[in-house]
């Protein structure tokens, strides 16, 4: 694994490896010294072409807990004519010796461009690109679900997957990078996913996705779910005829107080309610649902740091540079592997 661009090409083995590593990273957060020296001397650049304080500080905390040097680069220019091009920015960061670039971009596929071109040699982590993917968000969601699922089963999280877990993802799937990353990852981990959305907010072609599609949130809840993930409704959708009004949206597709009560009525006592944040309280999720004991919103934020530590650690500590480093380090590597490898 050299880059983390998408969950679609993430194998089950690698996904579980990231989640398992994140468990160990989480344990560090409970220690007196919440810092590991693993990435000492490595430089991680947070390259943000789109504002997202939450994601940036999560990655920043993750990198710092691993002792990496962190450079925050906010490049908000939205056109070639106005700002520096992605290519020039990448080459600048390369010249500054970045080992990893955490990139957030409004354009789908921008992280793929960084990874595929020779503009920069660093490991690339997709921190959300346009309406494409947000792989670390999906990993932290899966991490949160896996802890819950393992606890219900009375087993350890480590090494486990999500086999048999029923997950409903509700809201603006069309524009959601979180939904896309989750669909692929949850499918890889064995969960059964149902997308719930108004037809206007589902992409043409969704029928080819490895999940069920429903237009009716109540029916989906009644059939039984173990986790409900509510997606954020972006303000700019509200005036583009994707749905008639916010009131109608929240009545049909929002997780309101009635649906919260319905979970109890259906006997779904262990169902959790998830949201990637930031929440529109009263629109896609009611305050009571967001604050209920079922809500994992804060756990998701907490787990985000662990998952991002795991991703940075696995990308930066591993075989990413081995092609170049191998000839020089062959003997040293062999010496260490005498007792480490098996």
């Amino acid at each position: 694994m050299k880059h983390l661009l998408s969950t679609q090409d993430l194998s089950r083995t690698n996904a579980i490896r990231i989640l398992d590593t994140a468990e160990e990273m989480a344990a560090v957060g409970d220690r007196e010294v919440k810092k590991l020296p693993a990435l000492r001397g490595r430089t991680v650049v947070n390259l943000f072409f789109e504002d997202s304080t939450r994601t940036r500080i999560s990655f920043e905390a993750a990198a710092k807990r691993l002792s990496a040097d962190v450079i925050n680069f906010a490049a908000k220019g939205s056109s070639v004519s106005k700002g520096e091009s992605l290519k020039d920015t990448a080459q600048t960061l390369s010249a500054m010796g970045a080992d990893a670039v955490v990139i957030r971009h409004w354009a789908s596929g921008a992280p793929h461009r960084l990874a595929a071109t020779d503009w920069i040699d660093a490991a690339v982590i997709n921190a959300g690109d346009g309406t494409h993917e947000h792989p670390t968000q999906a990993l932290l969601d899966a991490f949160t679900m896996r802890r819950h699922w393992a606890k219900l089963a009375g087993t350890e999280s480590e090494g486990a997957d999500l086999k048999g877990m029923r997950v409903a993802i509700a809201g603006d799937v069309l524009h959601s990078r979180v939904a896309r990353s989750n669909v692929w990852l949850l499918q890889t981990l064995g969960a059964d996913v149902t997308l719930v959305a108004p037809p206007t907010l589902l992409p043409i072609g969704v029928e080819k996705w490895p999940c069920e599609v429903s237009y009716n949130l109540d029916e989906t809840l009644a059939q039984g779910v173990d986790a409900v993930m509510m997606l954020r409704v972006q303000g700019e959708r509200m005036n583009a005829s994707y749905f008639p009004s916010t009131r109608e949206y929240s009545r049909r597709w929002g997780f309101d107080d009635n649906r919260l009560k319905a979970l109890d009525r259906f006997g779904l006592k262990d169902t959790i309610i998830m949201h990637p944040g930031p929440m529109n309280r009263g629109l896609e999720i009611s305050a009571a649902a967001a604050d209920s004991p079922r809500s994992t919103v804060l756990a998701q934020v907490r787990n985000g740091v662990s998952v991002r530590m795991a991703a940075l650690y696995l990308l930066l500590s591993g075989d990413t540079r081995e092609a170049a480093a191998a000839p020089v380090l062959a003997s040293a590597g062999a010496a260490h592997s005498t007792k480490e490898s098996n």
Partner: protein
Amino acid sequence: MPGNTGTYLIRGASILGGAPADLLIRDGVIAETGTGLSADGATVIDAAALVALPGMVDVHTHLREPGREDAETVETGTRAAALGGYTAVHAMANSTPVADTAGVVEQVYSLGRAAGWVDVRPVGAVTVGLAGEQLAELGAMADSRARVRMFSDDGICVHDPVLMRRALEYVKAFDGVVAQHAQEPRLTAGAQMNEGEVSAVLGLTGWPAVAEESIIARDVLLAQHVGSRLHVCHVSTAGSVEIIRWAKQRGINVTAEVTPHHLLLTDDLVRSYDPVFKVNPPLRTDADVQALRAGLADGTIDVVGTDHAPHPSEHKECEWAQAAMGMTGLETALSVVQHTMIETGMMTWADFARVTSTAAARIGRLEDQGRPLEAGEPANVILVDPAARWTVDPYRMATMGRNSPFKGRELPGKVVATFFKGHPTVLDGGLNTPFPYAAAPAGAA
């Protein structure tokens, strides 16, 4: 008739892929055809393994000049055209300034003559500044030295139905044709790629087939209603082929074009997010590719137009959403059509001549292009080695654009020689010299 262009004896070329024959080219015309022609005083070209075809005519070329000389000039673009087997190109109107006046089309026409590699026939804009609000001076352009017959806002759809109706009606006065870029603008706001399975996964705003098909459906009905001539640029979907087939069956005077890239490439390539595959209209699905091939083979689609659209590298070396739309095509068109249509058994070389030359010249009303390879006809002739195989390298092309989507592909077929008005602009697969307008008598055009 022009003189001073030399005498060439093409010996043993397969005429339109058929029986071998000799072609004697003298003073700009095919002087004689037959076998065992005398080589007296002529430069002899052994064409035993070559196919002789009429010079190709592109109905859809972006030469970028005036205004974007960093992307392409008439000189570089027409060199590419000659190397690709073309003897005429229609230069699209979306230059800067827009070719919406007699002055601009005459300038482009003159630049073409000054370059001398191919006939450059300017396309006039339908509306002033391509703004879709007011008709450009179509008559003035038609009457100019450039003798414009094709009008197009290509790049932008003439979406106002009233304006489209008026344009179709008006060009009847001088036997013009409106070449429509069929793209419903509201259905394609912010669109980045074909809408379907791949766009759903990639999170790129979809460009639905219906945005093209609905405009074509409207326009063929308008053309029928006003009894005018409509040309549909770069048809890209199976549904569009169906609609045009239906229109032709009803006797509507519509012609259609397909690009080489839409005959070969699909939206699956967008998974790389490499903007070299970003084009308008977008690459579609394999089902569309198959329908376009079938449509071209059965005559529903009349011509192959390259939509050659060179861009400077900085417009492609960026994020997908930032990148310009377009692909180069002049130097790969013959190979791609051979690969997709001839090597699949769907077309013969005679069909090739129809879709790349004869029909294209008829749409553009170019009297001395797309003619039969017979004695007395203008000597716009190319020689093609169909057995050649080559690997596309954009850096070895004559066009300034490096944005070839075929980069790295091995393709069949190579243009060995191009005769433009009896003068070899290309010999031995490389550029020779431009047509010597200055040396030719005044009537050479």
